[in-house]
């Protein structure tokens, strides 16, 4: 899911995203939870990543956070899941494959 894409590796944020397959599952809409997530997000990183997934989010966090905005954000945060793809570290160019919806963040010994 997008969450793990948005959170960066220790060095290098935000992670780039390449998608080959996505899946959409409907989640329950919990406005309080989505609202609570907003301060934790790097908005610009999220907007960029959402574009890859063909979800349009406003460039800035609107002052009036109406239900439509929150619902849209929920789709980006929870519903759309990247099944197959790659996460790319912007600094080192290191690629983390996503297989079956599971990103592989394992590092080799010399990368630790």
């Amino acid at each position, binding site marked *: 899911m997008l*969450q793990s894409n948005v959170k960066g590796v220790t060095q290098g944020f935000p992670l780039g995203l390449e998608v080959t397959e996505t899946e959409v599952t409907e989640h329950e809409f919990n406005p309080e939870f989505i609202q609570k997530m907003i301060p934790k997000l790097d908005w610009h990183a999220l907007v960029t990543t959402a574009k890859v997934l063909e979800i349009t989010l406003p460039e800035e966090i609107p002052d009036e956070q109406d239900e439509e905005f929150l619902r849209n954000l929920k789709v980006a945060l929870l519903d759309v899941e990247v099944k197959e793809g790659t996460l790319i570290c912007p600094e080192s160019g290191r690629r983390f494959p996503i297989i079956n919806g599971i990103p592989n*963040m394992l590092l080799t010994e010399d990368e630790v």
Partner: protein
Amino acid sequence: MASNKRPELQAPPEIFYNDVEARKYATSSRMIEIQSQMSFRALELLNLPEGESAYLLDIGCGSGLSGDVLEERGHVWVGIDISEAMLMVSAERGVQNGDIMLGDMGQGLPFRPGTFDGAISVSALQWLCNQDKTSHNPIRRMRHFFQQLYNVLRRGTKAVFQFYPSCPQQVSLLTEAAMRCGFSGGMVIDYPNSTKAKKCYLVLFAGTPPGGFQLPKAMGTDEPQTSVKYERIKARGRARDRRNGKNVKAAPKSREW
């Protein structure tokens, strides 16, 4: 565990938890029950605000049994595990409000600072004490892990680890590593007098929550019992010292005093 041997002594986690072992976690009702019970207790020890869904980290999420418990309570979680087979079982079972990823806790946690409202871990921490590869340095891995855990937790939140320490030194190593990274807290041992029901939980506080913190009470104990035990140990220690001819300070109100 099929045999009585501890799994940590048999093979590295990514090897031990292979397809066969992972399958057991999905089918054995006894395993499921124990795991769910411990996850529930860990969540209880986290003591999250009532009626709010939180964003939680599950370290060593395995086949997602602990995630089920989190979901049941309406939380959204992210799980990390080193065993691909276990994660595959988790993916097959279908996680609803969770994300899973393949990773090694000793390599740190690849999340942004202040992301999580809490962390739980069920039967995983003891693996961190192993040196499964020549390049592994358990102490460095522990420190790295706790440092990053401290970062990814929101200030004032908690992390609860249920684990099976093999010796008291392991506990002190882990707690020391955690304290060095800024955590406070300690061990909660449920049913300490039972060999079977005894369960160890390391409860860590990332920063001080408003109003200070108080370590939750363990189950199956009551205060007077522990203090009596402590007295007895102290007394025994004094008696031993006396036998060894050591110069011991007399206990207050004793005859020597």
